[in-house]
């Protein structure tokens, strides 16, 4: 039971931490609850489908289907996180003002609500499919595995609780700094997910490693430990990164930062020009 609990907990926290930060980062955007719930529902349905068709997915792309699918959905999430942050670079101040003073002018421009939905969907689907596959196999094993299924559900609850805790923690950040903190968190998550995507492309033999183990910090912080795993999700911590992972990380980070800077500046200019 304990083993199952731990396996499920580890899978769930990856999704829970991402959803918690996305929920924090979109604080004050009207309708976000509905869109994140939609993402959650679609993600769970997607997780079931991925688990159901695991054999078909594995067989596609000459046996590399799973790695390629993972890489692509990770990159989709990176794109959505980037869109969110770039949008926030021009609307963050207004949003902060609105959170402070509910009932102010409604925000203009297309809000990245679809982005929120897709990020949630991707996070839940990716980790969820593993949980579904795992619990399903245990449940199929018969009544003697009942305690293992219970363990799985406790693991699920514990993972969600950790996400809620992180979200509550985020809300204690003063509003003045709130969106810059969540912005940085989203940025680092995006860079980390891009590095994960690079590893999957390399695993499928589609991209070169450009050097394995550029450094080895597993003695200082093991990726298997809870802090190591949380940092893996939050900032993309990898104990023994390859060159291609580092490259994807750096390119994603600088690209999103430059776009945020550029859009933020253009928005500020437009504001000063307006009468």
């Amino acid at each position, binding site marked *: 039971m304990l083993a199952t609990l731990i396996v499920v907990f*580890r899978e769930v926290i990856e999704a829970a931490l991402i959803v918690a930060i996305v929920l924090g980062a979109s604080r004050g955007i009207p309708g976000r609850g509905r869109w994140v719930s939609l993402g959650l529902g679609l993600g769970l349905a997607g997780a079931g489908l991925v688990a159901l068709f695991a054999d078909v997915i*594995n067989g596609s792309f000459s046996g590399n289907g799973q790695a390629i699918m993972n890489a692509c959905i990770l990159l989709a999430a990176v794109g959505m996180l980037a869109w969110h942050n770039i949008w926030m670079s021009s609307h963050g101040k207004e949003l902060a003002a609105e959170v402070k003073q509910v009932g102010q002018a409604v925000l203009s421009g297309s809000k990245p609500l679809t982005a929120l939905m897709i990020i949630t969907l991707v996070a839940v689907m990716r980790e969820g499919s593993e949980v579904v596959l795992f619990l399903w*196999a245990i449940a199929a*094993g018969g009544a003697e595995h009942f305690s293992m299924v219970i363990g799985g559900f406790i693991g699920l609850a514990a993972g969600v609780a950790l996400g809620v805790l992180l979200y509550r923690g985020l809300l204690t950040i003063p509003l003045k700094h709130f969106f810059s903190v969540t912005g940085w968190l989203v940025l680092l998550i995006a860079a980390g997910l891009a590095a994960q995507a690079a590893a999957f492309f390399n695993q499928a*033999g589609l991209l070169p490693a450009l050097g*394995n183990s550029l450094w080895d910090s597993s003695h200082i912080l093991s990726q*298997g430990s809870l802090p190591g795993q949380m940092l893996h999700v939050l900032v993309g911590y990898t104990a*023994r990164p390859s060159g291609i992972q580092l490259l994807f990380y750096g390119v994603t980070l600088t690209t999103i930062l430059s776009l945020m800077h550029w859009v933020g500046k253009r928005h500020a200019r437009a504001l000063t020009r307006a009468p």
Partner: protein
Amino acid sequence: MSRTALALSALLSLAAYSASADNAPVEIDIKAQAFVPAEIQVPAGVKVELHVVNTDDLPAEFESYDLSREIVVPGHGQVKVFIGPLDPGRYRFFNDFHQESEGYVVVTGDAKK
């Protein structure tokens, strides 16, 4: 040379990078959730294709922090994983669905080929 030309040549060299490995594939079986053999030898400095074959009813997840590898192996299914080129050393992998089961990729030989 313009930046576009540089980017283009970089893309072309990536495209030329083939998905084939340098040696014959190495098979690792999963029996009763454990890896058989639990230790495989591969030469340094070459790309190696691993075939992970699950003979159990239960799904497994072949995972390695040392190699940044992660792939679900369905019950009675098999998957393909490319690793390397690696420097000499021991690289741990494990079954994420049954964490006590572990194995090592042992890389020997000269890293510079």
